[in-house]
C-alpha cells in the first residue's frame, strides 16, 4: 500500500476501498450516475456540492479543501460514508489517480489517510 494523502476524517471511521474518481463538473456526476457504486470520489476547491445525487452509492468522498462544517462533510455523515476533508496529496497530479484503486483508513481521533492499493 502506498500512502497518497492525509486530511481530516470527518465522517464514519469505517475502512473502505474503491476505485478513485476525480470529479470536477456536474457532467462528471452525470456520467457516474448509473455506475457510482463502490467508488471513492475526489473533489477539489472547485466547490461542487453536486455529489449529492450519487452520494448514497459511493464508498467514500475526499476533498482537497473544506472541513467538518462543509456541506460535503455534512452530507457524507448523513449517508454514513467515510469522508476526508482538506486532504494534502503527495502528488500534484490528482487526475493521475483516476481509475486506480484506493483505500481510506482512519488513524486515531480525526486523521484520515488515503492509500493506493
Amino acid at each position, binding site marked *: 500500500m502506498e500512502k497518497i494523502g492525509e486530511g*481530516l*476524517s*470527518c*465522517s*464514519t*471511521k469505517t475502512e473502505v476501498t474503491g476505485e478513485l474518481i476525480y470529479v470536477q463538473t*456536474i457532467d462528471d*456526476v*452525470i456520467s457516474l*450516475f*448509473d455506475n457510482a457504486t463502490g467508488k471513492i470520489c475526489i*473533489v477539489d*476547491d472547485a*466547490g461542487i*456540492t*453536486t455529489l*449529492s*445525487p*450519487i452520494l*448514497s452509492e459511493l464508498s467514500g468522498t475526499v*476533498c482537497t*479543501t*473544506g*472541513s*467538518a*462544517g*462543509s*456541506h*460535503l462533510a*455534512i*452530507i457524507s*455523515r*448523513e449517508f*454514513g460514508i467515510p469522508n476526508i*476533508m*482538506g486532504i494534502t496529496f503527495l502528488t500534484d497530479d490528482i487526475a493521475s489517480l483516476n481509475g486506480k484503486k484506493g483505500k481510506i483508513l482512519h488513524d486515531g*481521533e*480525526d486523521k484520515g489517510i488515503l492509500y493506493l492499493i
Partner: protein
Amino acid sequence: MNYVNIFTESQPNPSLFGGKGSNLIKLIKFGFNVPSGFIINTNAYVKFLESSQIKDQIHQTLSEDYNPKDVFHFSQKIENLFLKSTIPQEIIDEISKQYHNLCEEAGKSSSFSIRSSANIEDSKKFSFAGQADSFLNHKTLEEILSSIKNCWISLFSPQALLYILQIKKFDVNLSLNNVKMAVVIQKMINSDISGVLFTANVITNNLNQMLINSTWGLGETIANNLIIPDLIILNKKNFQILKRIIGKKEKKSIPNPEGSSTKLVETELELRNICSVNEYQLRHLYNLGVQLENKFSYPQDIEWAIENEIIYILQSRPITTLNEK
C-alpha cells in the same frame, strides 16, 4: 398581508415559511441575534405558478420520464417558463413595502441576502439541503425580485432533478410538484469572521465537546469547501480549548464592491497563519452554543457571523448525524 411575513410578527410554520424561515422565527422568539428580515411565503410561490399559468407546463414537463443526461434540457425548459412569467403585482407590492421598511431600519448602505427555504429540506432519510440557492449582497428591489425568482427556479436545477432520479432508485417518489419554496430576505451581515459551530464533536461523535470551523470573510467558503478553515475543539463542560488547528484560509469571500454578488479574493498573508477567532470571541460562541442547545434540547449545527464584534446567528438546526455510528 398574504404573501410576505415579517420575522418578528410571525409564528414558526414550516409549510408556510419552509424549514429555514420557520427556524429563524423560532431563533428570534428565543431572543437570539438574527439579522432582521421578512419571508416571501409559499403562498406567493403557489400564486405565481397559478397566475402565470406555467404550473401545468411544469407538471407536464416533470411527469415525462427523463434520463440523467436530460437534466440540463429539462432544467432549462422550466427555467425559461419562470423567466418569461411576471410576479403578480399584489405580491410585488407587499415585497416592496417590506423592502422599504427594512431599508429604513437597516440603513442606507445596507445590502440584503436572499435565501431559499423549501418546505422539504432536512428530511431524515434524504437530505435536500444545500441543493437550493442563496444570493448575497443585493441592494435594489429589482435585484431582489430577480433573485426571488431564481430561488424558486433552483428547485428545478439540474442537481435537484438528478437527485429526484436518484431517490427513485430507492423507491422514494418525491415530486417537485409538491415542493414549495419560500424565500427569506435579510439584512446581510458583512462578516469580518464567519463559521459553523456544532455543539457536539461531529467527527468523533463526542457529545462532551463542541467543534468550530471559522474563517475570514463570508461563510460560503466553508460551506462550499473553497478553503480549509480553522478548526477548534472545545470541552463543552468547561470551555477548555482542546485543539486548535489553523487552516490555510488562502481565499476569502467578500461582498463584491460592484454590488449584487460576492467575490473570492486572496486572503492577506498575515491573516492566513493566525486563528480567525480570538479567545474572547470563542468564549461568546461557546456561550451561544450552550444556550442554543438548551433551548432546542438537542445538539445544534449553527451558522454564525461576526461583524464589528457583534455575533449574529444565521441558522441553527439539529445535528442530523449523531448516534448513527
